[in-house]
């Protein structure tokens, strides 16, 4: 999948999960920067991304995510 395509799809998922159609994220964005992104909605986001990209994350992969950039790299590595 093209990187731009991946990022667009990811942003759509973010907007859907956090109920904010104007949400913008960058690689440096963390959970603290997005309203409503807490440990509960984090899993909602993970599940939504798994569905959107037809991939599976492990607990360890999710446990060490620090920001959106990490999430992009992780999805990239799984979608080839």
């Amino acid at each position, binding site marked *: 999948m093209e990187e731009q395509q991946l990022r667009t799809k990811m942003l759509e998922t973010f907007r859907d999960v956090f109920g904010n159609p104007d949400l913008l994220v960058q690689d440096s964005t963390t959970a603290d920067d997005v309203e409503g992104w807490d440990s*509960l909605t984090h*899993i909602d986001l993970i*599940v939504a991304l798994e569905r959107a990209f037809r991939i599976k994350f*492990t607990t*360890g992969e*999710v*446990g*060490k995510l620090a920001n959106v950039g990490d999430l992009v790299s992780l999805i990239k590595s799984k979608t080839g």
Partner: protein
Amino acid sequence: MNFLSVQFALFLAIVVPGYYLCASRRRPLFLLLASYAFYILSSPLAAIGIFLATAFTFWMGAVIEAGQNEPAGNASRAPMLAAVTLLVLYLSFFKTLAPLARALNVDSASEGWAGVLARNALLPLGISYYTFKLISYLVDVYWKKIPAERSFIAFAAYAAFFPQIVAGPIQRSGDFLEQVHKLSPSTEMFRSGLRRMLIGCFKKAVVADNLGRLMDAAYAAPGAAHPSTLLAFYLFPLQLYADFSALTDIAVGTARLFGIQSPENFYEPFLATSISQYWRRWHMSLTTWLTDYVFLPLRMATRSAGNWGLAFSLMTNMILIGLWHSLSWTFFVFGVLHGFFLIVDALTSKRRSKFFKTHTGWDRAATWVGPVFTFHLVALAMVFVRAASLGQAWDVLSRLRLLRIEDTGIGENETLYALAGLTLWFLAWVSLKLKQRTWSTFTVPAWGRWAFYYAVIAVIVKYGHNAEGFIYFKF
């Protein structure tokens, strides 16, 4: 060793100058020796336990890392699970001894095995905190968040670091080890440490311990006429907050004297507008630990089960928080209550935020009503923290009727000191907020600061009540 004692002051008077006389590269070793000296002075036998647990974890960290490099892959999972299970069993064993002795009704005068059990049913100093530090280290190495530590001295100093050993904060290994390898505290860090310790002493001696005497009277003899219960209901959360945040202040402040920045435990918890927000502001080093190492794995495992998976993960997490404090029915109920509150909070959060977005008037009202409502939920659950048994908790809850301080049977002085202390603490908080917002360039001259510090010390000496210890020491 109590933080508010002459022994601790003397201990610091020896250790702090010794640390600064030490060459930089020897400071981790110095911190390790000082921490073990503190531990042995408090609890000599238990020092063997912490040393063995530390050595075992250090070795297993290396085994887990070596397993990750094997071509077969995933060879590190079994050692990680085995090591974490052993540490959990080690903690659970000691946590079970005291409830077992109580359940079997044995005392130290009993003969045979019963006496041995009763005499040894003490929780080793800091075991709840250092075991959690060790577990998170192993999982972080397994998750490749951090590399396995190469220096045993630095690692053992992390596990036993004396300012954090008695009651946290539970610092993550990556955060501590990064700092311990380059220890060179600035003068400002040292000063801010001393200031933080002074605030802690004030909160503990003047606010918490005077409130503590009110609580003791209110909970001492619940009978037919026990009108002070309402006061106890509202003031116990404040006492616990003053007591525990004072302990954190002293721990964070002491750590700064040695150039270590500790994580925080509190962020204005009683201003939280919801119960989920409260748990992100109360005992943060424990709740973030549980979020990462209990809630996240549970939630990932149950993510296909929808809301049932969410409810199960939340309830399990909160019951574990309760039982981590003590294996007792009162703490179990405390966990269940918070689990229930959090489930309701989580399941209604989307609907609530949608409602508030379209009803701005209600939204404004919620910012005021939210903290009051949340405080009542917290205070309700805290009755089970303070009560010695479910019976006493029920007794207290069923008598929430009248408010008459004079019937508590204690002098009015303690009430006055506690309330004056609370007011001062509140004023200090307001001024700090104002300073952050508007007077960020304003600084008090040195003579003013020192006059204030001496005044605080005088208030502590004159009006402080020296209780037997911090509430959180016993966990």
